[in-house]
């Protein structure tokens, strides 16, 4: 059992997959010799050689395009898009090609590739280093979308993602790379060694896609969150002494709607928290499904606490970020509702 931060968990999982299977290649911008701007691929080129882990041109569409061709040829490429804000040039290749290749060819061809990309704000990255575009991929059938909130899950989910025969979007909350983050930028940063979730077993394990984690059980209200916001929600409910059930979705597509439904049927109240822009964010889908399935158990409308419908501003980063205060307000509103 090792203490790892999320970067180390991802890196060691990549190394394991590469050593187990020659067909696993890792590439992207600056991932080769340098080891990635967030260091997630550090050392892989040295260990596995130039051909297994290499730099690419700054061409997100090209990166995903070649990955699809490789995957169709039998490899298992794991590509990095340096920031998810820069994934849009690859959107056509992801949504029109990777996602639909299996279907349109009736499984004659398929595209087992994993796209890793950092998401979320909290690092003063401004509008182009802070986005959370998961909803744009959740809308595209044929893709799976995963987002771990801690090193333990990162390893288990990444192992599964790479071994999955469908394209998987693997979103990495960059603010969690080095430690959990409760939403308060003024507190000294904690490392993952301070958390039980930083304990990453040496043996390999897989977390199935589509199984949420009930981070904490509770009876008063259900909180649905993923990525960074899991810890903000956790802190907010703890601080407020709310008996909340916190569900870390981990996988958006497929979604563990059973766990969600059970919880909301129990608590009768639900708050959804995410960092992405509110309108048409993944929270909308969650709210829609929760009220579809749990309408008669609900004692208050399902509420969303999200990023505002503005670009992520640089100077006002912490006004944009849905921190504990906003989460607490959301919780209070739902708890107070008749």
């Amino acid at each position, binding site marked *: 059992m090792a203490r790892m931060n999320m970067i180390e968990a991802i890196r060691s999982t990549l190394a394991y997959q590469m050593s187990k299977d020659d067909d696993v*290649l890792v590439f992207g911008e600056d991932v080769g010799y340098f080891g990635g701007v967030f260091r997630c691929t550090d050392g892989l080129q040295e260990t596995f050689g130039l*051909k297994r882990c290499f730099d*690419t*041109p700054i*061409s997100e*569409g*090209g990166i995903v*395009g*070649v*990955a*699809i*061709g*490789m*995957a*169709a*040829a*039998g*490899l298992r*490429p794991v590509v990095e898009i340096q920031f998810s804000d820069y994934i849009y*040039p690859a959107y*056509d*290749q992801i949504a*029109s*090609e990777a996602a639909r*290749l*299996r*279907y*349109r*060819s*009736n*499984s*004659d*061809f*398929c595209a087992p590739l994993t796209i890793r990309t950092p998401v979320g704000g909290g690092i003063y990255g401004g509008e182009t280093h802070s986005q959370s575009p998961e909803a744009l991929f959740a809308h595209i*059938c*044929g893709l*799976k979308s995963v987002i771990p909130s801690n090193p333990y899950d990162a390893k288990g989910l990444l192992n599964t993602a790479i071994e*999955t*025969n*469908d394209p998987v979007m693997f979103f990495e909350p960059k603010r969690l790379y080095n430690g959990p983050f409760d939403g308060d930028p003024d507190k000294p940063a904690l490392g993952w060694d301070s958390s039980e979730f930083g304990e990453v077993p040496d043996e390999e394990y897989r977390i199935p896609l*589509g199984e949420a984690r009930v981070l904490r059980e509770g009876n008063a209200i259900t909180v649905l969150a993923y990525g960074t916001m899991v810890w903000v929600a956790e802190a907010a409910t703890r601080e407020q002494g709310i008996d909340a059930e916190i569900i870390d979705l981990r996988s958006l597509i*497929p*979604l563990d*709607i059973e766990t969600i439904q059970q919880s909301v049927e129990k608590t009768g109240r639900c708050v959804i928290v995410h960092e992405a822009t509110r309108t048409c964010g993944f929270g909308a889908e969650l709210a829609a499904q929760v009220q579809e399935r749990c309408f008669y158990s609900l004692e208050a409308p399902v509420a969303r606490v999200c990023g505002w419908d503005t670009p992520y501003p640089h100077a006002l980063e912490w006004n944009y970020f849905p921190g504990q205060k906003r989460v607490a307000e959301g919780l209070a509103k739902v708890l107070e509702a008749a």
Partner: protein
Amino acid sequence: MHDRRTILPIDEKPSSPELHIPEPLYRPGDKPDFSHIHVRRSDNLERPDVLVDSYETERHAGGLIRVMNMDGDASGPWMPDISADTLRQGLRSMLTVRLMDDRMFAMQRQGKLSFYLKSRGEEAISVAQALSVRKSDMVFPTYRQQGILVARNYPLKRMMCQCLSNAGDPALGRQMPTMYSSKEYGFFSISGNLGTQFIQAVGWAMASAYKNRDDLAMAYIGDGSTAEGDFHYALNFASTYRAPVILNIVNNQWAISSFQGIAGGQSKTFASRGLGYGLASLRVDGNDFLAVYAVTRWAAERARRGGGATVIEHYTYRAEGHSSSDDPSKYRPSEEANAWPYGDPIDRLKQHLIKLGEWSDEQHAELLEELSEMVRETYKEAEALGSIASGTGIDPKTMFEGVYEHMSPKLEEQAELSGVGSWRE
């Protein structure tokens, strides 16, 4: 009438910046006249060693590699080593494609198919290329390379069933007509999104090189579609990683209603684009079966011997409308196809074979009859399996399958809701 400007020659410049909108030479009502195009064999374009440096192909990218003249005589440095049997095989495939195209188009007009797309005038490109590479070389086609499947002896009936969207379609009617897919025949699933296959082919080729196999990838893109980002990605990645891929640009002069000048073909040949990326680049008479065959052999050998990618521009003409949805008389003179100076690829190969003493008008007529009959009969068999007019016979349940490797609970639920039953039983 429409106020049309003549094309400014490359070397003539207006005296101040002015928004320049390129226009084709002829529009409906004009009499197409290509007499300024000097059609001759360009013997001055030597056949360099396959591992030559890319910059030594500059003249090949700007010129036009030809082997046959318009009378069917063939000679010159690019004259390939090819048997009369192979040529006859090519002729047969080309004719099959054309007859099938005609048949399917007619059936589209009768409402049996929702759509069809011919390759008339471009048959030499796909057929000669199919014969010049291995079957294990993966092709990343556009919708106008049906000739490759035919030349690789893919069952015609299966193609027709695909077009009819019926139960005989291996892809369950999921795609529009002509969007074939066959891993077995080395034919990558065609995408409706133009250009995307070009960079995917590079990835396939990189995988091949990574595995130290000497199979290559062969990709196609239309003149119009070269404007997509994927074209640039492909040339760039192919250059950087020295991928064993043949990057074919089929310049058939038109992209639906837009002439090739809109894609930037007026100022420089499309093949020339390759040079800037350090790729060997050749431009070939796409209606010259022998020349297409020869340049493809060259490019394939280059790729297999580690020389990396070659860009090939096939200079040809889309002799009919873009597809069954198009009416080309709306934007170009209807006589333009006939006036096109590079002739018809089938006629030219036939002529060549006759000159060789390996073919005759009688044999040709017989073959035509045999193939017409075969196409007709095959179509009947195919249509018996259904059509969008008579019912496709495709199980609605299949709609929910294959989105993922395994059926997801969400899709199961939707399938149940749709009334097609459940996978749970």
